């Protein structure tokens, strides 16, 4: 039943974001490839793909921030927290369902648009290697996980329906404008490729799983913290 609630609560936001992102990204790739003649070098195709990734990343970060809105603290503002908390369910379980649903939705919002972009690319010229697509997906998921965790933790700490996502968005922007010296920590730079992409926008080595694991751990810590914070809170 908790899944039912989370779905009803987020389905509008999720579906609109998903459809919008998929359509825009697919169009960007298709149009980019189409407007170029067939004699352009393959690197140009990858440039198109890279711009698709950039577009997706920006939209994805916005969408995820909006999706993580809600939760018990925001219910306190709308007044339904009393009803939810009186249900015979532990707070941890409520959070876990919300988190799992949020992670699944976030993942779908990477996979579906990328599938569409790959298809768009496939139908408008020579296909790109699946490895490259996978590389981009991992970059976005790895770095992005940190932002998902941040948004969840903020929503457990900050009251106010719009204050929480605004702070999360602020953090994203701060990461986007952080000094270059911190680039190797910055998940935003990771999404952008950092030193893993060569000048031709192709990966210059294997997928940096170590780094991904590090970011995933940070995300996991943030998520666990968001649950613990909520468990201790007085409502």
């Amino acid at each position, binding site marked *: *039943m908790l899944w*039912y*609630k989370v779905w*009803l*609560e987020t389905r509008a936001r999720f579906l609109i974001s998903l459809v919008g992102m998929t359509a825009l990204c697919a169009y960007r790739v298709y149009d980019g490839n189409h407007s170029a003649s067939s004699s352009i070098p393959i690197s140009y195709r990858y440039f198109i793909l890279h711009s698709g990734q950039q577009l997706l990343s920006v939209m994805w970060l916005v969408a995820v921030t909006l999706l993580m809105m809600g939760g018990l603290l925001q219910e306190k503002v*709308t*007044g*339904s927290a*009393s*009803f939810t*908390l*009186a*249900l*015979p*369910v*532990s707070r941890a379980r409520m959070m876990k369902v919300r988190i799992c649903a949020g992670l699944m939705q976030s993942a779908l919002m990477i996979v579906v648009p990328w599938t569409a972009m790959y298809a768009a690319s496939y139908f408008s010229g020579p296909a790109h290697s699946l490895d490259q697509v996978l590389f981009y997906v991992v970059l976005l998921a790895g770095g992005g996980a940190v932002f998902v965790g941040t948004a969840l933790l903020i929503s457990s700490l900050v009251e106010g329906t719009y204050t929480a996502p605004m702070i999360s968005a602020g953090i994203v922007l701060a990461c986007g404008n952080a000094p270059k010296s911190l680039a190797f920590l910055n998940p935003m730079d990771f999404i952008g490729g950092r030193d893993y992409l060569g000048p031709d926008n192709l990966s210059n080595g294997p997928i940096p799983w170590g780094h991904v694991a590090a970011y995933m751990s940070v995300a996991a810590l943030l998520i666990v913290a968001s649950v613990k914070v909520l*468990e*201790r809170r*007085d*409502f």
Partner: protein
Amino acid sequence: MSSPTVIETMGLSKLYGRSHAVRNLNLTVRPNRITAFLGLNGAGKSTTIRMLLGMIMPSEGSGTVLGRRIDDPAESVALRRDVAYVSEDKRLYNYMTVEQMIRFTSGFVPGWREDVATALLRRYELPAGRKVRHLSKGMHTKLALLLAIARSPALLILDEPSEGLDPRGVEQLLETLVAQCAEGTSIFFSSHQIEEVERISDQVCVIHHGRLVMDAALDELRESWRRVDVVLPGGAHVGDFEMQGVERVHTRGKQMSVVASGNVDAIITRASESGATAIDVTPVGLREIFLQTIDLDTSGEN
């Protein structure tokens, strides 16, 4: 105490900074009756209820609801299976329809009574397909009540249940509560509506500044509290009437009004010994008993 209790608190306290919202509360609520919880705004009623349901952690002390500890997270979840709560704001999920709210809530409660839900849906005239955000305040309250009652709980806790209801809605609410109690549900409700409390309650608990100041059967209060109006031609002296049972003495010239919670015949004796030419004994309503208990001067003179 060997007899069962539905709610029992032992030294329950909640501190916010340096002030006690609830102080050393020893509340006992017995099963199969309707217990009213009275108190001024900010007296600690809502805080107490929230501690009972695990929404707020007590600072000190402990409590049980239906025999399960309120400060243990696992037991708190277990007790909430058998306790239905209607909060003061009664707000539900704006994005769900009436029907969806019913389906959602029923999923958590094995003892859900679909027949009761359907009957109440009809009786309260609630539109099944309408979203909660488009319900009027009265309908909102009725839906919240429906969701609590169709759970067929062992204990029903309500915080200001009649707020936002029109007179017909209030009547329906009181009938529903009484019917639920007859089915075996224990009812614990806080209210500012003294008339409603007087109509249906068996027991009255009063909380003031976080402390329990009264816990009595309403019938006993009706039997024992009296106002004795006395005319003393020799002048009325407050000091003469400082005796057990006297709650407040009020004089004006040769007239004296004594509000007593008991020992009334001794007061009458004292009055006639003092040479009273008229002694009138009248009952005292719950509103005055409540105000007197929390030490408010109802007529301003003393």
